[in-house]
């Protein structure tokens, strides 16, 4: 990666390279670290026609692919219709799922398509570690989905793992699971966003585990995907494969289920809200003209970090991680590998960190047979 290309990306492109599109806030699970605080469907969710119009926009802007997530996107009754519409309009789809709807028939359909990729979420290489975060039975659901995909002949689907202090030690075991199902391992950074803002302090890897993670990534090279999410670890030395920059509002963004456009998937908060696809001018105008995105594309100061010898490697780390832990955006990342985040983090007064907004968590855990008190509390399954 040449410096000039990185500079170009920091100035932003006319269209995102890829974007994340959360199709619904409805979810059968209630993961403790959910970035989007999902649970209940939002009644203002984009309609099928609105989704198709948005896909038309993506095609016009030549956005090659979208990462579809949620919530659990497959619980939308028009999910497969939208996937087919996207691929027919030259917008590739990679969707994240907990596996609940990946039956043998669906697995076959996925295996037969070149344009659809699937990513199964798994946050522990054992049921014990996974289910503590994702809920009872979720490990078995994910493994069954992988078995179905493998049996259907799907190759190179992704197994997506959020790294926590409980699963860093399982990296080799995750790799073994991926190899068993001819899948590819994808690991990403735990962000203190959504419900994760509440649980981050108990879940994020310890400093020595960050080093372990970095060494493992260097050793396993390009065979493991990371979504470029560990660029803050590049300050240990060798740059990790990938862009190693914050792409928020510059080369990536997030569209949420009600059409709100945020700078990145880890920043669902009004401070990072650029506009809505239902506004005049639609998504194109939000991407090209919103004040927030233009600001993110202007030269950033880097603040205290610019004096650090590692600034060129980590570029100050993750904006969302700083924001939700109450740190200034132009200071060190809370997980700065040089330890520069520790003092500022300790100085953040308890209860002063931003509250995640909006929050679609269910008020109480869903139990089968419970009568819903509102339409939106209906189980999405």
């Amino acid at each position, binding site marked *: 990666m040449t410096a000039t*290309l990185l500079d170009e990306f920091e100035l932003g*492109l006319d269209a995102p390279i890829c974007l994340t599109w959360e199709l619904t806030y409805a979810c059968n699970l209630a993961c403790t670290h959910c970035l989007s605080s999902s649970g209940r469907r939002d009644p203002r969710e984009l309609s099928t026609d609105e989704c198709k119009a948005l896909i038309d926009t993506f095609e016009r802007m030549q956005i*090659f692919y979208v990462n579809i997530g949620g919530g659990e996107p497959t619980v939308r009754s028009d999910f497969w219709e939208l996937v087919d519409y996207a691929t027919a309009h030259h917008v590739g789809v990679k969707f994240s799922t907990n596996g609940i709807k990946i039956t043998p028939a669906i697995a076959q359909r996925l295996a037969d398509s070149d344009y659809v990729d699937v990513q199964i979420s798994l946050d522990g290489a054992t049921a014990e570690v996974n289910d503590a975060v994702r809920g009872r039975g979720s490990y078995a659901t994910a493994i069954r989905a992988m078995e179905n995909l493998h049996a259907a002949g799907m190759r190179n689907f992704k197994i997506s793992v959020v790294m926590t202090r409980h699963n860093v030690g399982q990296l080799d075991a995750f790799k073994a699971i991926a190899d068993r199902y001819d899948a590819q391992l994808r690991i990403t950074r735990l962000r203190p966003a959504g419900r994760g803002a509440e649980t981050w302090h108990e879940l994020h890897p310890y400093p020595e585990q960050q080093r372990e993670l970095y060494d493992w990534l260097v050793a396993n090279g390009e065979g493991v995907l990371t979504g470029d999410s560990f660029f803050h670890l590049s300050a240990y030395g060798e740059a990790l494969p990938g862009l190693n920059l914050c792409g928020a509002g510059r080369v990536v963004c997030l569209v949420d289920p009600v059409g709100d456009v945020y700078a990145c998937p880890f920043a669902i908060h009004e401070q990072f809200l650029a506009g809505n696809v239902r506004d005049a001018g639609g998504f194109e105008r939000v991407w090209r003209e919103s004040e927030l995105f233009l600001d993110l594309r202007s030269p950033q100061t880097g603040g205290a970090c610019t004096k650090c010898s590692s600034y060129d490697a980590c570029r100050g780390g993750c904006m969302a991680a700083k924001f939700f832990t109450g740190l200034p955006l132009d200071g060190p990342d809370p997980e700065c590998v040089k330890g520069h985040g520790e003092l500022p983090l300790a100085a953040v007064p308890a209860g002063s960190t931003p509250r995640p907004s909006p929050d679609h968590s269910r008020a109480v855990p869903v139990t089968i047979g419970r009568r819903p008190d509102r339409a939106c509390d209906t189980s999405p399954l």
Partner: protein
Amino acid sequence: MSTKDFDLDGAWRLHPSVAVRPERFGALLYHFGTRRLSFLKTPALLDAVQRLDSSESARAALAGAGVTGGEIPAYQRALAGLAATDMICERAS
């Protein structure tokens, strides 16, 4: 594919599953089959890649894009990289 194995005198084409998006710096390429993204880091490389289909050789495509003499080895390396990731492929001439 190593650089020296890339046949500059062969006929090449953009892979049919690859989409091209021109950018200020050059272009983004996306392969829908392998789901890989690549960057063309100069406008001249984009021009050359777009000329592959209608040129009798990669060398002719480079010449058409104004790439000559001492610049050729760097562009040959770039084309070899694109061939190694299936972004471009050999064409029956």
